[in-house]
């Protein structure tokens, strides 16, 4: 549904995005993750034909963004970073205007208007001026304008910004309900959001794609070892060395709180049973034992750490995954 091949966007000497390539299948939800200024919005603006790419091609539903922008725009619902609302309009007047701009008339428009108002739970404010609405409601009005014409492709730039937790869940549910019949690209820097609603994640940093996979696969690719966290009631003084002596345990670190230790073992090995037996046999008092899985936060930080001085490199990712594979084999 969306096919992006090697798009580059330069603003003078500044390269905002550099040879970005990805695709989104019909019905798929893709998250665009990246720190501020990574190139998420630029990529979205190219896809929505707001600006052309310096190099490369972007196609939506088979239509080229540069050559057939009107066809592309007809098939896209776009929520920019700031909801594009007119404050002097009421919610229903604004959405009617949006519908007309998308060529909707008569009964089609009325039905679409009612449906989008219902989908976004805007019924209680439909006759209120947008200028008087809270930020959360404005964001929802912005989302309503993106879905009113039921486009096959939705491009949402940080759709849950400014919403309260209950509204965030509602919007995520809405996005999930759109998956299947719509292709969705959403940008976010709220990582649980990506895990919650997206089948696939593209991590972009410094204008380049540094990783692209499912959230689970990404954490698996970047994991070097299995980690177990244990909390012991009465650890002896030489606890670190004693835990290290358990066969298969590679490293032991002191945890953040007293009595908590982090044990590292080779990838693919589960040593919880041995560790539990050892602690119980020594009567140290086992309070907690759990495996630590790598969250999307860890993956994200690992891949975008260039902000702290490291340059993001695609090779860096392949090195990591290579290391992971080597360790696994």
């Amino acid at each position, binding site marked *: 549904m969306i096919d992006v091949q090697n798009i580059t966007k330069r603003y003078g000497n500044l390269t905002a995005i550099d040879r970005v390539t990805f695709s989104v299948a019909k019905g798929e939800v893709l998250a665009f993750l990246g720190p501020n200024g990574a190139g998420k919005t630029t990529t979205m603006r190219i896809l929505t034909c707001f*600006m052309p790419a310096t190099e490369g091609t972007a196609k939506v539903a088979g239509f080229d963004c540069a050559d057939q922008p009107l066809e592309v*725009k007809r098939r896209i619902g776009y929520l*920019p970073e*700031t909801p594009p609302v007119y404050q*002097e309009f009421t919610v229903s007047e604004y959405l009617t205007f949006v519908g*007309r701009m998308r060529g909707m008339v008569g009964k089609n428009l009325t039905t679409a208007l009612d449906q989008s108002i219902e989908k976004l739970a805007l019924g209680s404010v439909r006759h209120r001026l947008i200028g008087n609405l809270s930020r959360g409601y404005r964001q929802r009005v912005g989302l309503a304008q993106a879905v009113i014409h039921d486009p096959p492709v939705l491009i949402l730039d940080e759709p849950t910004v400014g919403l309260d937790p209950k509204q965030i869940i509602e919007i995520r549910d809405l996005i999930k309900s759109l998956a299947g019949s719509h292709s969705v690209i959403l940008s976010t820097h709220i990582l649980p959001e990506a895990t919650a609603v997206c089948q696939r994640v593209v991590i972009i940093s410094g204008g380049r794609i540094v990783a692209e996979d499912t959230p689970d696969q990404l954490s698996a690719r970047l994991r070097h070892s299995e980690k177990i966290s244990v909390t012991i009631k009465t650890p002896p003084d030489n606890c670190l060395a004693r835990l290290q002596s358990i066969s298969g345990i590679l490293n032991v670190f002191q945890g953040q709180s007293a009595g908590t230790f982090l044990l590292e073992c080779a990838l693919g090995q589960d040593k919880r049973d041995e560790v539990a037996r050892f602690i119980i046999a020594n009567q140290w008092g086992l309070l907690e034992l759990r495996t630590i899985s790598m969250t999307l936060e860890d993956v994200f930080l690992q891949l975008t750490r260039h902000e702290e001085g490291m340059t993001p490199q695609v090779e860096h990712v392949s090195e990591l995954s290579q290391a992971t594979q080597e360790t696994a084999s």
Partner: protein
Amino acid sequence: MTPVQAIIAKELRGYFVSPVVYVVGAIFLLIFGFLSYLYVVYAGYQAIQLMQMQGGQAQLNLNDLVFRNLFASMRFVLLIILPILTMRLFAEERKLRTFEFLMTSPIGINEIVAGKFVSVFLVFLSLLGLTGLVPTVLMLFSDFDWNPIWTGYLGMTLLGALFISVGLLASAITENQIVAAFLSFGMLLLIWLISGLGALLGDTTLGQIISYVSFMDHYDRLVRGLIDTKDLVYFFSSLAFMLFLTHRVVESTRWK
């Protein structure tokens, strides 16, 4: 309703829910009324003088004494009023980030430009329509020739359309409404003042070209009651040129 009509309706709504159009409209009509009053009083004064000199009933030409002066003065009033009406058109959209919505809607830039132009033009026409009250009232008290008044109104309509297109261009250039207003004042004053340069250069080719570029001579002929194809071509071609430039400026924002 087509997308262009939707834009026109949206802009008109924008004008009428904000105080701008009421304030600008009131000032415009007040100035028009006040100037009419001044010229009528002046005409009356002339009539008294004529009566004293010639005795009996003097024939007054209201077309020359009132309307020609009034329409000539309106150049300056329109130059002040119209940039205030046009300054928000694109600048506000860019400031409020709704510009991105317009540009990603499935319509062409020419439709956006046309919709915005037509909306202000309609506001301007309705204001101009209200000024029709002055000749209508004067008609009750005096006889005058309506034809130069029609051409005068045609002149004001064409001049207004040209000023609006310049204002639209200025508004597309910047996202600051005040800057947009001053930019259109500046451009219009410049086009006005170069007519002085044209007059200075006299009957030379350059002088003629410069005089042609300024709207002064073209407007004056219409106000005097002359409809010349040359003047109509001037107004329509410069209007088209300004709208074309606006289109290019809006288009160029995509490349920045």
